[in-house]
């Protein structure tokens, strides 16, 4: 053999050179990973120390005190985030799922290509621009900032994430599953809801959770929509509403039309203030926010990873 193809080659030498290159390059990748882990641990540990220091029960159940005074909590931000994420989910999830179904049912039409491009675009549009849009189409006509406006822009943030992840997961469902149901005489909608959705359920749910996490961590779009409201407290509205015999719808309307606050918004504001107390609170908010987002994220990712490997088989 040696006299054939490899006559012109000093095999041992070539082998040695190749082995060295291999070891060197593979070594570099390990170093890169190490360097990337450093800031993460740094951030987490730092936030834990700074914020963990401040966190207590009060922090969760009280409204902020006036600036410069001690104590107080971020109940307004927690409730605001909660309300807005719920609004966003209500607005975003049903149409997103339906659109995802459209994409897998008609994968190659002009409309589906357009939807896909629009979704990518929407996902790429900086969240601040979405905020501007919310400001223009809701805040300006309504003439006031509101939780509703915040919720709607968050819905815009969520939409592309849900659509694309749902489409991907539904696409992973073998087309034969769908055909199998249709071949039994099932109508499309039953096929979609009873066979495809359950088959992709975990993946779709994961996508939703990721989008919720994303929405919960967003600040920029809320700047000109929810604005912020140190006194946002649902309890008070409910209390007052019941006392004055208002209808449930009315009460909800009241809540939604108030400017609202959110955790990231609070963090952003507190961080800029000159009062050390507020800065300390900012770290605590950062911790709460991070814990919430990370938990949601990690659960979702774990779920997704499991799901993907299972469907692929």
């Amino acid at each position, binding site marked *: 053999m040696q006299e054939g193809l490899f006559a012109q080659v000093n095999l041992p030498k070539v082998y040695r050179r190749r082995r060295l290159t291999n070891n060197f390059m593979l070594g570099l990748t390990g170093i890169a990973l190490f360097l990337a882990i450093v800031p993460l641990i740094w951030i987490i540990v*730092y936030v834990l120390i700074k914020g963990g220091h401040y966190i207590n029960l009060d922090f969760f159940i009280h409204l902020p005190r006036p600036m410069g005074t001690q104590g107080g909590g971020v109940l307004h931000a927690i409730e605001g985030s909660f309300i807005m994420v719920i609004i966003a989910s209500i607005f975003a999830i049903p149409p997103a799922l339906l659109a995802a179904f459209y994409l897998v049912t008609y994968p190659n039409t002009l409309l589906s290509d357009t939807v896909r491009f629009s979704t990518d675009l929407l996902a790429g549009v900086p*969240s*601040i621009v979405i905020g501007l849009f919310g400001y223009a189409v809701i805040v300006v006509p309504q003439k006031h900032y509101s939780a509703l406006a915040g919720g709607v822009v968050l819905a815009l943030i969520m939409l592309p994430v849900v659509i694309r992840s749902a489409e991907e997961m539904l696409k992973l469902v073998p087309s034969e599953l769908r055909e199998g149901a249709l071949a039994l005489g099932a109508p499309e*909608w039953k096929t979609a809801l009873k066979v495809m959705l359950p088959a992709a359920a975990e993946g779709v749910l994961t996508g939703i959770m990721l989008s919720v996490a994303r929405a919960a961590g967003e600040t920029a779009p809320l700047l000109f929509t929810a604005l912020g409201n140190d006194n946002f407290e649902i309890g008070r509205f409910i209390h007052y509403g019941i006392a004055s015999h208002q209808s449930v719808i009315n009460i909800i309307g009241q809540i939604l039309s108030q400017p609202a606050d959110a955790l990231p918004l609070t963090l952003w504001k507190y*961080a800029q203030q000159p009062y050390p107390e507020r800065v300390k609170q900012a770290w605590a908010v950062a911790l709460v*926010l991070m814990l919430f987002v990370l938990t949601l994220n*990690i659960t979702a*990712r774990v779920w997704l990873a499991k799901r993907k490997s299972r469907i692929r088989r």
Partner: protein
Amino acid sequence: MANLKAIKRRPRWYNKIGYWLQHGDRIWKALLFLSSLLIVSLVVWIAWRLWYQSTLSRHQFGWAFISPWVPSSWNPALDKFQAWPSIYGSLITSVIALILAIPFSLGIAIFLAELAPAYARPPLNYMIEMLAAVPSVVYGLWGIYVFLPLIVVPIGEVIAKTAGQIPGLTTFFGGPMPVSGLSRFGAALILTIMITPTITAVSRDVLLAIPQSQREASLALGATQWETIWNVLIPYGLSGILGAVILGFGRAIGETMAVTMVIGNTTGGGYSILKPGYTMASIIANEFAEAVSDLHASALIEIGVVLFVTTLLLNAIARWLVWNVNHRTMGR
């Protein structure tokens, strides 16, 4: 045959209506169609709304608004607005972030997908995921109080003393470094940290999605692991990796809060990366709430338009690149 009879027992009208509605599918299809239309119209609406709201500014300034060659000035008091410095700020921070993040991300992705032993993969993966999930305000906060003073300032000073002294490079690396660290360079480094996990995660998924058979084919030809990665896997995943890079670029250019917190927020400042400045996103975030005049607001919205268009272009370029690469290598 028992069940056949049962099927026929349904009333006539039921079957008739069912047939007319195609057993509910007409409604279903209408819903699917409407939802899809909704998505598209939303995007169009966003674009149109921004376009419309920026009319004032567009009429006032024309193309000069985004031109690099027009003397820049941003003065709300005088209603004079010119966006180039913020556009430059966005571009320079994103490009630096990208240049720094790509080799890192690829290295990490390769390690995670190809080298890490099975037991080490999940925890390492979660760490990368967490890096991506940290809300950007937290990055900003950490940036201001920790990262800028401890890391960015020393490095910036070194740059100012070395590259900054070289004639020709002074424009870009001229010092001095602000003591607070608030600068384009700081923003770029924060962005690097923020987009690394994005690029890493996507590239890693791309690498993992490459059929095992590609690796086996290469190894079976006697290639080493690195040769396999470099000559086979990267080319195979090139379109996906390109996608990841562009996604990272999109993230970087659109990132608002963290950048706003560390870039210093000043107009002007020349071209030096060691100076504070604005990005498009940060100028909107910073000034819109306090926009003093309609023209001011309109100018900020026009910056939004520029951002939107940039996103659109990035997406288009991404698609074209991906198609091109696929066409060349995969033949499809």
